[in-house]
């Protein structure tokens, strides 16, 4: 059903006239042209579409745009402060935690939410928190090293 849904994306208010049942992922990519958030599976199993709602990581492929009315959404495009990368983005660069890089935005946002909840997360907590994000290039040891770098700085 067509409706107008207002929410915040990366600190800016947006209003979208669309079907409230439409996946948030599609609205971000096709209406707001924020293509950093990726489609991976459509069932919340791979984490490629992860964005933040407030401080929580959510799967935007199984969250409808109606579900985020009035919420604050952060995508990968809104994480850096100007030219200054977020610590997790910087850590992924430092550790070269990427091969094709397609899963990286979702990995980074999952890690940001994890570290907001547990700034000094242990290795076991990081593994548990990040195991929902698939990387088919299997850069897992470097992804783990990147998240640990930030946890150890806290």
């Amino acid at each position: 059903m067509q409706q107008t849904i207002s929410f915040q994306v990366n600190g800016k208010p947006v209003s979208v006239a669309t079907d409230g049942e439409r996946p948030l992922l599609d609205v971000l990519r096709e209406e707001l042209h924020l293509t950093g958030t990726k489609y991976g599976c459509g069932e919340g199993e791979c984490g490629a579409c992860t964005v933040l709602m407030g401080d929580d990581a959510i799967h935007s492929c199984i969250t409808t745009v109606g579900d985020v009315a009035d919420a604050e959404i952060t995508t990968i495009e809104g994480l850096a402060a100007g030219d200054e990368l977020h610590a997790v983005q910087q850590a992924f660069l430092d550790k070269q935690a990427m091969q094709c890089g397609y899963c990286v935005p979702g990995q980074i946002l999952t890690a940001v939410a994890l570290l907001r909840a547990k700034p000094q997360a242990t290795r076991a907590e990081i593994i548990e928190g990040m195991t929902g994000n698939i990387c088919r290039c299997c850069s897992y040891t470097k992804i783990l090293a990147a998240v640990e770098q930030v946890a150890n700085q806290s």
Partner: protein
Amino acid sequence: MTKSTEHDGPWEVERYELRAAPVHHFTANRREFVQVIGAGLAVVVSIDVAHGQRGGRRGGGGDAKLSQRFQLDPDGTVTVFTSKVEVGQGSRTQLTQAAAEELRLPLDKIQLVMADTQLCPDDGGTAGSRTTPATVPSVRRGAAALREFLAEQAAERLGIAQENLTIAEGVYSDSASGKRLTLAELIGEEGFAAKLSEAPATGEISKHSDWKVLGKSANKTAGREVVTGQHKYPSDIQLPGMQYGKVLNPPSFKAKLVSVDLAPAEAMEGVIVVRDGDFVGCVAASSWQARHALEAIAATAKWEEKPQISSDELFEHLKKTAALSGSGWGRPQVKEWGDFKGIGAIFRESHNVKHLEVAYTIPYIQHAPMEPRAAVAQWEEGKVTVWAGTQQPGRVVGELRQVFRLNEDQVRVIVPDTGGGFGGKHSGEVAIEAARLAKAAGNPVSLRWTREEEFTWAYFRPAGLIEVKASVSGDDLISWFFTNYNSGGSAIDTPYEIPNGQTRFLPTDSPLRQGSYRALASTANTFARESAMDEMAEKVGVGPLEFRLNHLKTGRLKNVLIAATEKFHWKDVPSTQAYDNRGIGLACGTEKGSFVAACVEVEVIDNQIKVLNVTQAFDCGAIQNPDNLRSQVEGCIVMGLGGALTEEIKFQNGKVTNASFSQYGVPRLADVPELDIVLVDRPDLSSVGAGETPIIALAPAIANAVYDAIGVRLRSLPLRIT
């Protein structure tokens, strides 16, 4: 004796590199057809013909002209053009390093334009680990020629002898006179372009001992764009006026469309419905709307489905349909040596001879790259441009020309850096679908397959049945009889010295559409051979390492086996014949000129196999980028865990029954064992690819470790204790 494994290529191109044909055939417009033929282009005959016209230089049959390979910009940037694609394996960074090395320029002064068929010389598709042994040297020879040409020009301009010229960071100078000239100044000179077009295409590349850029780790050139979400993958391309498409797929393989009512979608505002023969699709302003329009049509579709082979009867079917003779791609490969005809007699002989007769099976698996197939197509004045995720831009041009009956100059394919390939994106289905929809819509159309579509309609790694008969006399293997049904002939040769034998690859009637996958059939053949080696070693009471070393010549494979086992402290770990649920296993192999050996430790609890640690040694010649090499080797090991332990396409009557990540388990962070990687650098040898071979030793090493742990011999992938 078996063939030496010390070869440095050329190795045979695996037949499955070309197997999967396009799935769509549009109705012919008779006049177009005749015109195309009349122009002398038999593009409708077969893809291979069309492809051959573009891909003749594949694998390095001569270097591109400097003017095709390079563009020099006034700011001193050199742009390199290549048809290779970046799918995560690191080719963009590696080719940047290659050009920087020979041009004596910093990495940030090199840009790469990859895989644009209108702009780039044809270096072939991205397959068979050919970028490192073929394209890197070609780019280096061109860059060296460019460097020599520029030095000549600079010396002339500065009025000095060339031997007095110093080149550093894009500045040419003469230390005696202090004169200097920047690259930007040099190329700004009048008549420069004309001189460049006459320059020789090939120069002398620097020796390994002089390497300044190659041989060192370099960060990914697009890393910052990746972590900020700015990097554009094929599914991220957005053009003005672009719409979204969705295509109707049959409910099962080989199902034929009987009837469909397009009216429910046509009634929807803003929806364009396309029907061309069996091809049915919808285009709309959003993918949500396109999906709903298509679902409305799909609900009315009637199909004629065909009974088909299911996964539980697969291996019987493969054996029953094996081709013992044939031609072309369907040709069996047979190699025989020694007294192979006497193998039957050797096998029947019981005096002092022990025998093994076993079969191993490998299921179909899916590449499941994170980015499913995606393309954006745009038609302008009868010409089509397609941005597509594919490893074979040249071949996709051929497919588009074939189905739309176009001339070469009417098709342009551009491959943005793509979200994973692993050998799975050699075909152009999605490019054809997007192009057909865009043609009807009159607007650019973006099409991205769903995960379920990718799991179902992308081609699969071939399933295989492998039969091994081997005999051992005393401690020595005396005969080796190895038959691979369906999965392929890669790495089918045994590297072990065995006096009599036969290896056969027999094609079959594969029930599923199959094609390339990282390392092709090497994984299957190495799994069977290395498992059988352990089984034979046990029969004669010799340890797995000693048994292999006894049958290997001195050389690179033996070296990596020793390197891996020493790092793992193999000899210090007691083999746990007590079956205490923990065990160790090893395996080794070679493919495409590189060599790998793996040692693993597993733990089996409640019939679940957990890989605790992996030590792997790998030799691919001179190392060009150690950090990227490590990523590729680790990536292969962890990806290989999936094929070894969980991944298997299940299908029934033409339907994949586990077409999702929730049903088809791939390795995750929590599954990653401790990894200990030994990179064997060989500065004295040329470099070969590293994205495939490091995957092949893992499954047999795990199977051997499981046997060591619990005394159960598993001969089917994925390895499962039932």
